């Protein structure tokens, strides 16, 4: 079985909107996958199914051997501990420093202070922010804030890094910096990366696997893909 599998996944929201239609996907360990599509096509829905924010209406989603659709509410945290999640709006806590924001994700494990410190510094080094430990989020540039949130996502050594438009709020140059950080995580740590985006430039530059969604259907799935306008 692959690390991630979608089998005939349908998703219909409470209000009747059909967001995904018979989605089938397989992603193996260490892959870097873009999920692209225009607004409202269902990218975020796929991401939400992965970290069990939403349940599929029918079909099955497997992540690292866990049947996400069958996962009871009380057990969702077991899935989340295998994942790192990054969002467009960073979701940092404004009253905590950079260091504290990252260490926050380790609190739940009850590790020794020294162990928390070691891991937090390691993650911050990976994203190139070791010299901003004591800064607060509002003292950082957007790209830096996003790197903090990436550090927080990888600090527990997840198998999969899930990103929903991580560069959505950033200018092209900063976006590329952030992309390099994510690529380095994929290369250095072997973390599988799944990223929803509609940033054409990034997709074209990175030359990774691209899954194209249109109106809830997977319409294209190519290796070293490009953001082709005719497919969208």
């Amino acid at each position: 079985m692959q690390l991630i599998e979608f089998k005939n996944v349908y998703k219909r929201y409470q209000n009747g909107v059909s967001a995904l239609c018979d989605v089938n996907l397989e992603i193996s360990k260490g892959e870097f996958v873009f999920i692209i599509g225009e607004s409202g096509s269902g990218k975020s829905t796929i991401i939400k199914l992965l970290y069990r924010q939403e349940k599929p209406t029918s079909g099955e989603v497997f992540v690292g051997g866990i049947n996400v659709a069958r996962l009871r509410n009380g057990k969702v945290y077991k899935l989340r501990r295998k994942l790192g999640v990054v969002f467009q709006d960073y979701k940092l806590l404004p009253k905590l420093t950079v260091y504290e924001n990252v260490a926050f994700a380790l609190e739940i494990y009850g590790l020794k202070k020294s162990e928390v410190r070691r891991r937090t510094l390691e993650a911050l080094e990976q994203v190139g922010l070791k010299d901003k430990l004591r800064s607060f989020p509002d003292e950082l540039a957007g790209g830096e804030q996003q790197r903090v949130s990436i550090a927080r996502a990888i600090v527990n050594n997840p198998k999969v890094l899930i990103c929903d438009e991580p560069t959505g709020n950033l200018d092209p140059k900063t976006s590329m910096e952030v992309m390099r950080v994510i690529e380095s995580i994929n290369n250095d740590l072997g973390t599988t990366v799944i990223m929803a985006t509609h940033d054409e430039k990034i997709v074209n530059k990175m030359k990774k696997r691209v899954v194209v969604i249109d109106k809830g259907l997977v319409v294209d799935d190519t290796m070293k893909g490009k953001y082709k306008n005719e497919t969208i």
Partner: protein
Amino acid sequence: MKPFRILKSNFLESFKGVFRNFSLSIASITCITITLILVGFSIFVTLNVNNFTAEIEKDMTIVVFLDRKASDEDIDAIKEKIESLDNIKKITFNSKEDVKKSMQKESEIFNTILSEYTESNNPLQDSFLIKVEDINRIGDTANEIQTIEKITLVKYGEGSVEELVKIFDLVKKITYIAVVALVIVTAFLISNTIKITIQSRKREIEIRRLVGASNAFIRQPFFFEGIIIGFLGSIIPIAICCFGYSYLYERLGGKLFTEIIRLIDPKAINYMVMVALVVIGVVVGALGSFRAVRKYLKV
């Protein structure tokens, strides 16, 4: 070690929570303080009322004097009749000879006077000493006994004490009701405080969920918060109740109005009341946060 570290960090987290919404926490703490002062008051009242009712019950005896002409058969019949009434706990026969002997023993003067009399011209009367089950109904019972024939006189303890018992009983009941009402109000208020803490920390909770915190972990700090509020709220009541009672006890010389109503020594009950107040405060706090967590921290 791990669970302990998690517990510790969550506990510190809750302390921060209490002070983050301090004005609200103060409202809850004040409410629980008032409640617990009343609880403390009612505990002291209850303990003392129970104590002296028991004391009075022990002492309060109906004395039934029998007609001088009553024969032995009459006495047996009267005894049977009295025993058949309800509310009778114990009945003992006190013959005039017994009375005479015990009086003679008591003082030299009685001894000389009473030794004049023989069995036949003993001026004393035979009597029954009766203990009742329910002190509140002692008057009715005495009246019932009065209707039996060949009885000259029925006497029992002072009426004023009986009245006092009734008043204290009423005070006891009113404080019970007030305590229950206040406990409920307090639990709701604490629940509301925790709700606001929860809302003010939505983002934090969301992120905790995202990074894989279990429900228990997420809920813990809010639980502790209610408990901390309950605990903080019990400090002032403990001081007021225990010192207040000790002070009152000293001032009144250990009795209330009359020698009959002896107060319980504070040393004997203060510790128990302290523990009770802390426990009640903590339990009410826990109940409040339990409700908030169940209602506003759904998975």
